[in-house]
């Protein structure tokens, strides 16, 4: 098997790996690094459940070759909380009851994270459009959108503090 070297920053920690040339970013996160917060589902970039943030942009990790990520930085759901303190998005999802079975939530939160980083105070419609590529089969999305709106308010208030 032909392997390629991979120098990857995951959640602020640097890994130097050797991975099969056809391995996806999802394969490497889950199987090599055992960071299983990122979920496997459709494997065709239809459901968004495997979403991670790659160099600041949301991507479906099932359709990105790990080899293409050499020298790049990934943030996964494991990288959001600081110790015991949940990220405002995670907190808002809990508070608003946005989580039912939970399977889509890591991908949903990472989709929202990348979106809010670029659009700190979005409209509700913009949030709905932003998560269109991330499917939840439980909630009907209302509470997910509520949670992202709440998180956006808190995050931008935090940002405004001196």
């Amino acid at each position, binding site marked *: 098997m032909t392997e390629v070297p991979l120098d990857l920053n995951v959640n602020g920690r640097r890994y130097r790996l050797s991975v099969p*040339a056809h391995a996806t970013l999802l394969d490497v996160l889950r199987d090599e690094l055992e960071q299983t917060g990122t979920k496997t589902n459709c494997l065709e970039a239809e459901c968004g459940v495997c979403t991670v943030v790659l160099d600041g942009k949301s991507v479906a990790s099932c359709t990105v*070759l790990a080899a293409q990520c050499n020298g790049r930085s990934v943030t996964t759901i494991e990288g959001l909380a600081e110790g015991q303190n949940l990220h405002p998005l995670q907190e808002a999802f809990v508070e608003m009851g946005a989580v039912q079975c939970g399977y889509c939530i890591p991908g949903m939160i990472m989709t929202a994270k990348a979106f809010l980083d670029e659009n700190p105070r979005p409209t509700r419609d913009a949030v709905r459009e932003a998560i269109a*590529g991330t499917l939840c089969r439980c909630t009907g999305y209302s509470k997910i959108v509520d949670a992202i709106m709440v998180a956006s308010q808190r995050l931008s208030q935090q940002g405004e503090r001196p």
Partner: protein
Amino acid sequence: MDVVFLEPQSLEDAIAMAQSAGPSAKFIAGGTDLIIQARKSGTWPKTIINLQRLPGLGEIVEAAPNWHLGALVTHRQIESDARFLGSLLALRESACVIGGHQVRNVATIGGNICNASPAADMLPVLLCLNAKVTLAGVAGARVVPLCEFIEGPRKTVRAIGEVVTQVQFAAPAARSGSAFLKGGRRRAMEISIVAMAAVVSAGADGTMTDVRLAVGAAGPKAIRLPEVEKFLEGKVPSKSVLQEAGALAVSAVSPIDDVRASASFRRHLTAVYTRRAIETSWNRIVELGNDRSAA
């Protein structure tokens, strides 16, 4: 499975690598088509050549009236480029309905045209803009009109060892409007049942002068509809004119039945979207005129 992964740092290297690797090699950019196709078919290319490190292919450059879109420009870059207004608004409208943010963040215009899906959403718009494709190969560069570049479903004129480096087009006349319409069961994450693009220019006499109309997902490849264009030129888009244009468009398409829609529904949508695309483009010219007179 034994895949060799190559990372050229220059265009010349990419061409040389593809030349020596032969037909079992594939270029990768965003990867959103290649990886899914390889996984589904169980057949991976023997060699994957990563184009993402090539310098200078990721920019949108305006050299009025011409636009140059590097092959590595992503759908997200196109949809968020506020310079695409008026006659170029349809480009943003087509880029923003492809997949979700995750796909649009990585999927490239070069990949979209090389994959040559009959349902590729940007193709009808690019056809309306008379887009041309630049290919770089061992013998140098050549420029091919997009309508000739795509030969059929998943088939292009690109030869082994040739890299698509850019897509270019000239902005239509000032008094022009454009529209892109996509038919699907829902608004997000859909593969088009029918996609329609129009660019319409208004003449001094208040009629449509330059009319361009293209349809996707209604045949083996996206096509312009010259009979409809000719019929509309010199006319005002009245209800009866649009009705007739819709009927003409239907006779020019050759849709199939598949899991997404029947051929007859696709024909129906072709008529409806012809009317709407022309009308919307036209109304957008009028809006532009009103804005100017108000200002």
